[in-house]
Each structure stands twice: as structure tokens, then as C-alpha cells.
């Protein structure tokens, strides 16, 4: 899986592709990564990622996890996912250019195509942001 092309797992593309790799996944948890580059769409004027970029990265991480499970079940196209709700988002620090974000997604209940997730993003173990989300996967 480490070499799985992220583009097989999520439909987003440059300039708004916000996950580099799916590092690990099992039935309830995944790890994804993103190295923040200077040309990232969400870079603020101070050279750090905007909070909205962290939100998009966490949402795409959840989408990559859903894509991985869909591909395991035989899907040929990555599913399109939308954010339905964000709750309890907290931003503690913002990553800088060159930082590698590693994000843990834990999947919760799925009701009618809407999946609840918990996400937290770290740089070298230091918590940058955490949130709960509901992600709607388009059938």
C-alpha cells in the first residue's frame, strides 16, 4: 500500500491535492502524510499553512481512507467525498514549509452514506490540529 498512487484513492488533483501518501490503513484507522511545499494552495503570507489547509488535508485524508476501502472492494474510480460537518476543530500550531504532516484518521459510525471520523495532524509528534468531521461519500 505504501506505493499505492494517491491519485487512485482520491479524486482531487493539483493545485488542491492535499495528501501525498496513505502510509497505513486497517479497518478503523489510517495514517496519511503531506509534506508542506512553498507552492501549496493554502500557504499563508507568513509561510505557514492556513487552518483551512489543515481542514482540507484532514478531509482528504479521510477521503483517501474511504478510497482505499473502496479500491479493496474492487472500485476502479476513487469515490468523491464531501465534508458534511466539522465539529470541535482546534488548531494549536500551523505547519511550515518543509514540515511533514502525519494525520491519523479514526473512522466512527456510518449512517446513510455519512461517515463520522476523528482526525489529528502532527508534525514530528507535535499536535497541530484535531477535529471531528462527517464525510459524505457520493455513491
Amino acid at each position: 500500500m505504501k506505493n499505492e498512487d494517491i491519485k487512485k484513492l482520491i479524486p482531487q488533483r493539483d493545485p488542491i491535492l492535499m495528501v501525498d501518501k496513505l502510509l497505513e490503513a486497517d479497518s478503523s484507522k489510517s495514517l496519511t502524510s503531506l509534506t508542506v511545499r512553498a507552492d501549496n494552495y493554502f500557504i499563508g503570507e507568513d509561510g505557514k499553512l492556513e487552518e483551512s489547509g489543515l481542514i482540507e488535508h484532514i478531509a482528504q485524508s479521510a477521503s483517501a481512507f474511504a478510497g482505499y476501502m473502496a479500491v479493496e472492494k474492487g472500485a476502479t474510480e476513487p469515490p468523491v467525498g464531501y465534508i458534511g460537518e466539522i465539529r470541535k476543530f482546534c488548531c494549536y500550531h500551523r505547519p511550515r514549509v518543509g514540515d511533514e504532516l502525519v494525520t491519523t484518521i479514526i473512522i466512527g459510525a456510518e449512517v446513510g452514506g455519512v461517515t463520522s471520523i476523528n482526525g489529528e495532524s502532527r508534525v514530528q509528534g507535535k499536535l497541530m490540529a484535531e477535529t471531528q468531521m462527517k464525510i459524505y461519500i457520493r455513491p
Partner: protein
Amino acid sequence: MKLENNYYKLISMHHEGLSSRFHIALRKECDVYIGHFPGDPVSPGACNIQTIKECAEQLTGKELRISTIRQCRLTAVVTPVVCPELDVIINLQSLEQGYAVTARIIDAEKTYMEYKGEMTV
């Protein structure tokens, strides 16, 4: 990143009691739609959150950070075709460290986003 004149254009802004209404046009030629999604332009929720932040910054005249989002509901899909013009309605309350921000993104037809959170200076 600055979304004004890139992702959206501000058409007008006026105050209504305690709220402020920013009337914006989504720019369908924005680069973001090359990737979100190829051949299927959908406005990213994260860009709409960033738009709320930019409007709040314009109101306060200060650079703000999104410290928390208590709840943000994305109640309908936004695209520059379905809803080319939107109203961002913002209410700010001063806190010790910044502002409690309540916002809605709407047009005549629908509510697209309901947002509650805190931004710090």
C-alpha cells in the same frame, strides 16, 4: 493565499444591525477547479471557511487565526455554476483574545454553510 479576486470577488458589503453581509461572486475560472474536481467543479468547503475568515478580517481590520470551530455544517454543495453569487453573513462578538464568529453562507434559494467558532488576533 488570498482568496479575494482569486476564488471570489467582493461585489458589495453592508451592515445590517449586528451583522454584516458580504455579497460575493465565485470565480469559475479559479485554478482550484482544475483539481476539485477535474471536469466536475465543486467549491471546496475549506475555501468557503477561508472566505469567512477573510470577511471577518476585513471587518476587524486585523489578521485573524481560526483557533476553534465549534460547528460548521455544510448543508448544500456549492459550485460556481449552481450558486455563482452568494451572501456571507457575519456576526462578530468580542472576546478577550479575539472574536466569536457566527457566519452563514446563503443565496436566495438555500443555506450552504452555517459556521460557529472563535478566531484570535
